């Protein structure tokens, strides 16, 4: 377990570094590090962070899911349609989450029964989910009546004692629960084991296929929840939203110590990864830098983070 702590130290230092960098650069650390700005940043992080919880599981098992952005769009539309249809908010929320789970299950089945590699299976789903979202929304945005769902990811919660948006607290709770799940349950061990050496797991008589379907389904539930949050932020279902978000989500997991070859990754790390990217965006905005500067910086950060990780891995391999 000491190892897990060590894994988070690197990303954490990166996070502190980015925060200090912009605090000094903006010339007014008290504003950049203020409670208000923290609220803004956290509210902006929620969608990617929730997606990264699911993606961490998939990446640890040596898989990948490229359909996240499209699934977020589809589930945001599904939630909005349910609300507009007069269903109770919690039912609409459940509809979005379950829809994400179903798509995850289909991904998992395509990977295990059709024997299509995850990259391709989920690349296909990226197109399918986006298309279905546009069809379901009739190629328009879906407006919704005001409910408590719209409060999920607001910057300033209506109940001031909450300090941060309810979605932020939900994310923290889910991240903690899933961290414990990955660490302390048999299912969690199998996620790591499959990513570490799938052949060995199979030789031990474990049903790898069933475990993979479970992994993609569980992750799909999180992508569905991210979709609900997306709808909450826009206060409408939008079939064209969240294009390319899967790359942000993958980047968060990788910056947080996840390895695309499997066996490694942590949810706390991925949360920090998501925060690093939000802080960078926010900092660039405060500096008045154009969008393209953010994109360049984030691109470089991703490569540097992984290069550092590889360097560290090579050093430890040298010892053994």
């Amino acid at each position: 377990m000491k190892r897990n702590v060590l894994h988070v130290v690197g990303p954490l230092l990166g996070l502190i570094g980015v925060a200090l960098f912009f605090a000094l650069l903006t010339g007014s650390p008290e504003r950049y590090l203020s409670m208000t700005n923290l609220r803004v940043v956290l509210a902006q992080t929620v969608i990617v962070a929730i997606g990264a919880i699911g993606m961490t599981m998939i990446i640890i098992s040596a898989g990948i899911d490229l359909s996240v952005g499209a699934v977020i769009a589809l589930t945001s539309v599904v939630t909005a349609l349910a609300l507009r249809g007069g269903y109770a908010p919690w039912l609409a929320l459940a509809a979005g989450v379950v829809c994400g789970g179903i798509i995850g299950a289909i991904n998992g089945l395509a990977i295990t029964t059709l024997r299509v590699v995850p990259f391709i299976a989920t690349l296909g789903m990226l197109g399918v989910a986006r298309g279905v979202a546009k069809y379901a929304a009739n190629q328009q945005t879906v407006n919704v009546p005001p409910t408590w769902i719209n409060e999920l990811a607001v910057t300033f919660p209506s109940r001031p004692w909450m300090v941060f948006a309810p979605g932020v607290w939900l994310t923290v709770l889910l991240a903690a629960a899933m961290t414990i799940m990955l660490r302390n349950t048999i299912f969690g061990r199998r996620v790591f084991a499959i990513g570490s050496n799938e052949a060995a797991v199979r030789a031990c008589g474990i049903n790898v296929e069933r475990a993979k379907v479970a992994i993609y389904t569980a992750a799909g539930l999180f992508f569905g929840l991210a979709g609900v949050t997306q709808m909450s932020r826009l206060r409408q279902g939008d079939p064209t939203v969240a294009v390319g978000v899967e790359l942000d989500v993958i980047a968060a997991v990788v910056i947080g110590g996840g390895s695309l070859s499997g066996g490694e990754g942590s949810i706390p790390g991925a949360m920090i990864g998501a925060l690093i990217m939000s802080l960078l965006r926010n900092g660039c905005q405060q500096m008045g830098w154009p969008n393209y500067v953010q994109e360049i910086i984030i691109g470089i950060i991703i490569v540097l983070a992984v290069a550092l990780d590889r360097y560290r891995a090579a050093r430890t391999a040298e010892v053994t």
Partner: protein
Amino acid sequence: MTQLRLRGIRKRFGATAALDGVDFDVSGGEVHALIGENGAGKSTLMNILSGTFAPDDGAMFLDDVPYAPARPADARRYGIAHIHQELALCPHLSVAENIFLGIEPSRREMHTRATRLLDEFGRGEVDPARRAGDLPLADQQVVEICRALAFDARVLLMDEPTSSLQRGDVERLFRLIGKLRERGVAVIYISHFLEELREIAERYTVLRDGRSVSAGALAAVSNEELIAAMVARSMETIEREQIPAVSEDVLLSVRNLAAPHRVHSATFDLRRGEILGIAGLIGSGRSELIRAIFGLLRTSGGEVSRRGTIGYLSEDRKGEGLALQLSVADNVTMSRLRTCARAGWIDLRRQNAQAEEVMRRLRVKAAGPRSAVMRLSGGNQQKVVLGRLLHQDADILLLDEPTRGIDVGSKADIFAEIAQLAREGKAIVVVSSYLPDLFAVCDRIAVMCRGRLSEAKATAEWTPDLVMQTAIGGSEKAA
């Protein structure tokens, strides 16, 4: 008491019969040695027992009940554990998690039971919370054995468990096997090292060409008799070619070469026009030696000096030998594309002409130089790999298993070509598992055993039995 009986087991893969009638008995409290040359069918037999393959024919009985596992999980349920030749651990998981993979108890119980298992093994100092991938090789093996014990295996299949262990670890392993025997576990132990087998096993079965050809008590047979039973076939097909004149011009000189873990010491000189054969068991480090000489493997000591260019043929044809989707011409000219290009532009006509010349010389059967290599038969694919070396026109050729898995006709063509190349003044190293081939084509032979290469001696000074004895670390003292 556990009783495992096998009767008339057969298994074919395509055109080759891997197993062709194996009878085999082992009972609880016994260590049974399974002996045979590379390719005799030992690993296939283990894979059938552990449920990876189903036999085509024959029957297995466990305690007089028919035993027919459909998958590895079934074998585990019956209490049959397979410790693979290549380690099968999850390097990222902890020692305890690896031991209980598939049968996870609660975390605390896992820790205490893992500690107890390791302790029984005499490796109590291994921390069950440590990452398995960080352990030394010998301890990783211990973890695998503990995994087999964790679910109370009745039959333990051990495939070459000592090939990567040092002597101290071997002794520790043997003490553990002794404990298992006392507990009534039946152990099937595959090894090439006859002296080790005598230490640990009572009875033996020899496999040759997929058949069980000899069985009995180890104490009642000599090593010579066992080796004769293993290599009987090898004696017949040997035919010596006339030795071409080998010059005194040394092109490749290897001195005390070492590479981490696999190669401890190798010394030889290779002269222009000479074919040096390297014999040895799989896992003895012979492929690693070749790779170290070519520069694909980091060396940890010794020297290699060479004069002239060098070419390498990998034993892994599909993985390292060919670009399967590309054409014959592209593959043949790959190492020296410059010869059919002008200012970086490939002259297709010239490339085709050069490829056709190589194809004619090696009698490659293909529709034309533009046909994709993956459409060719294994034998023709292998000729294409050799063709690439021909086209490259290197002075020194390192050939690792140049005739692996190909038909007899192609094999004859390839050996004829190797002999021809030597006559043209190339210096050639041939690694092969198949002794008759080495005897037929080589001027000198050296034998690799556990990372050490013996002195290279003229082929006439060797016999197949002597090569085998050296390979299994018998009479010959390694140089």
